[in-house]
C-alpha cells in the first residue's frame, strides 16, 4: 500500500517537472526571439532616426550654401558635422538645370528658375533615405 502510493506520487512529480522544463524552454526560446526582434527593431529605429537627422542637416546645408549663390556661379555644400559611421550622402540635380550627379558642388541656378535637387542618404543595414528640395539664387 505504501509502496504503490509512493510510486504514483513520484511519477506525477516527474511528469510535471518534465512538462515544466519543456514549457519553460519553449517560453525562454520565445522570449529570446522577441528580445532579439526588439533589439533589431531598435537598431533599425536608431539608424532611421540618424538617417533623418543626416538628410535634414544635408538639406539645410545645401539651402544655406545656395544662399551664397550668384547667377552663373557655384556653391559648395559642406556637411555641418562629421557624418555618423556608416552613413554617406549624395546630391543630384534632377530638374532642368544642370546634368548628371553633382556631389557637394552645385551650379547656381538662374535667378528665375529654382533648382530641384534630390538628396540621398545611405546608411548601415541598407538604409536609404531620399528627399527632394529646391534651392534658389537669392
Amino acid at each position: 500500500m505504501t509502496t504503490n502510493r509512493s510510486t504514483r506520487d513520484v511519477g506525477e512529480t516527474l511528469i510535471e517537472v518534465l512538462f515544466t522544463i519543456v514549457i519553460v524552454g519553449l517560453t525562454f526560446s520565445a522570449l529570446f526571439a522577441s528580445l532579439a526582434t526588439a533589439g533589431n527593431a531598435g537598431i533599425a529605429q536608431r539608424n532611421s532616426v540618424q538617417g533623418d537627422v543626416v538628410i535634414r542637416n544635408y538639406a539645410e546645408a545645401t539651402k544655406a550654401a545656395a544662399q551664397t549663390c550668384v547667377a552663373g556661379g557655384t556653391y559648395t555644400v559642406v556637411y555641418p558635422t562629421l557624418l555618423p559611421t556608416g552613413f554617406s550622402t549624395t546630391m543630384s540635380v534632377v530638374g532642368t538645370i544642370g546634368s548628371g550627379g553633382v556631389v557637394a558642388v552645385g551650379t547656381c541656378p538662374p535667378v528665375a528658375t529654382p533648382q530641384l535637387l534630390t538628396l540621398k542618404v545611405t546608411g548601415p543595414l541598407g538604409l536609404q533615405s531620399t528627399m527632394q528640395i529646391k534651392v534658389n539664387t537669392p
Partner: protein
Amino acid sequence: MNAPSRQHRQPDSGASLILAIGFVMMVGLISAGLLALATSGLNNRTTLQTLRNRQYAADGAIEQAISQVRGLTCLSANGFIVDSSLNGFAIRVDWINACGVVQSGDRGTTAAASSSDGTVAAQRNVVFSACESTGAACDPTKVIVRATVDFQQAAAGAVTKTYVQSWSVNR
C-alpha cells in the same frame, strides 16, 4: 503515518504546471510589450518622415513662388501657384503682395519710382503661405510654412535682391 503525508502532498499536485502557465503568460506579456514598442517606434518613423517630406515640399514650393513673384511688380495682384514636383505632395502657395516703404524724396510710393540712379527705390514685402493643395485658398490653420520675403527693386523695377525676413514652419 502515511495518511497525513498523502493529505499534505495532494494540495501541491499540479502546482508546477500552474507556475509554468503563469510564467508563460508573464513572458508572453513581456514579449507582446516589446514588440508593440518596436512596432510603434517604426510606425512613428514613417509618420515623421512623411511630415519631413511635406515640410520640405512646402519649403521648395515657396522657393518656386519666390522666383515667380520676383518678376512681378509692386502693383501686381495677389496670387498663388500649385507645385506638385516635390516628394509626392501637391503644395499650394498663396502670396499677398504688400507694396512696401519707398525711400523718401521724389521716388514715390510705388515700384514705378522716379529714381534712375540704380539705388533701391522700393521694398516689396510679400507674405507666402504654403499648404497642401485642396483647390481652395490656404486655410490659415493649415499653413505648413509661412514666409515673408522682401524684394528690393531698383528704380527700373527689376528686383536686385531678395531678403528672407521670416520663415516659419508651422506644422
